[in-house]
């Protein structure tokens, strides 16, 4: 977990920047390089990557809001167990509610929801941002980080499914499986590594001036 903290004076915080920050400058996967395990485990098809991204977006936003709302009641020495409670609480609530009232969606996403408890990225944002900021900026930070994660998973799974199965969202596009290794865990490492290098290259070459420096 990095030591970086975005220190923006609260009155000057622009919510749009917070969201863009989560997608570009502090993208969970490509820049912060945390939560790489789910980024590899679930991105072997576009649908899986997308559903996982949506689930993370929801949990990250709710956890950030809750942590920010209760940050004054949490003793600093026990903040981590309490963050874990908040995360697992939201994950369980989402899991049970979907199982009861959104059966079709649950059948598609149920596998992924419970995995989110163990995501470093959620805990990292609660610790680095939401525990030090007000509710509104924390919410936008959560949305930004969630969208960044969603974006990363969609890009990774797009290439992995296309190359590994020759399909996209389950629809066969190429009649063969060009590179089966891409849907296996090894291919996950390759895809994440190559894409990470690609985005860092773009960053270094074109976006240098727009990156938020700490």
């Amino acid at each position: 977990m990095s030591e970086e903290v975005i220190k923006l004076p609260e009155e000057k915080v622009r919510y749009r920047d917070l969201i863009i920050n989560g997608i570009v400058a502090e993208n969970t996967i490509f820049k912060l390089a945390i939560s790489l395990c789910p980024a590899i485990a679930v991105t072997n098809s576009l649908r899986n990557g997308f559903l996982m991204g949506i689930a993370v977006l929801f949990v990250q936003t709710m956890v950030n809001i809750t942590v920010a709302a209760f940050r004054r009641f949490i003793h600093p020495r026990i903040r981590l167990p309490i963050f874990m409670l908040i995360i697992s609480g939201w994950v369980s609530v989402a899991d049970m509610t979907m199982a009861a009232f959104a059966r079709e969606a649950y059948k598609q996403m149920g596998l992924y929801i419970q995995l989110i408890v163990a995501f470093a990225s959620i805990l990292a944002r609660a610790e680095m941002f939401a525990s030090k900021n007000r509710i509104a900026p924390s919410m936008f930070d959560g949305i930004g980080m969630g969208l960044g994660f969603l974006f990363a998973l969609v890009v990774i799974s797009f290439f992995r499914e296309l190359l590994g199965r020759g399909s996209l969202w389950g629809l066969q596009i190429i009649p063969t499986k060009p590179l089966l290794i891409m849907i296996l865990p090894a291919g996950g490492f390759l895809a994440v590594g190559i894409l990470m290098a690609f985005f860092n290259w773009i960053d270094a070459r074109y976006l240098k001036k727009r990156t938020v420096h700490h």
Partner: protein
Amino acid sequence: MTPKDIIKITINLVIIYIIGGLILAGVYAKTSPVIYQKNEQEKQEALKKMAPEAEAIDKLGDWYPHEKHAEYYVVKKGGDTAGYIIQTFGKGYSSYINILVATDKDLKIEKIEILSHAETPGLGDEIEKPSFKEQFKGKDPEHVRLVKTETTEYIQAITGVTISSRAVTEDGVRRALEFLKGQLLSPQTGNRARHEGGSHE
């Protein structure tokens, strides 16, 4: 850290965990009856789908693959036994795969259905694909065997999903058929099996 701090921290932690526990208990109390009811409803619909032409599907008894509760049924058409449906579990890569198998009255498979599992998303869950499940149609228990080469005689494993494929094929379906065969030959010795008078003589 003074003793006062320790007490403060403890109280802080306990209060927050109690609140968290209460919220979860509340959500659980609201959702679990709905979940149970919908699971039952889906089970009935699944049975109907396994034998769409059945006039009645009667429970024959319970059995316990991997110490889990499963049921088996007799399918009736025009007063005669038309086939059987048996629920079974196969031990997969990361979960027990819950499977329904429908057979004709000679235990030849009509179709199988994967009810639930928690295999690796995107890999193990390929066992749900029709191309895999349809291989079971028309197979008798002797031919429910997993092979890794191209085959129409046996069941072909999905590439990269051997463990889940084997769990469905051999641990799940074949064991269920062998159990069912044993039950039908000597129903009295079965575990808690109820003999349906003369329906499968």
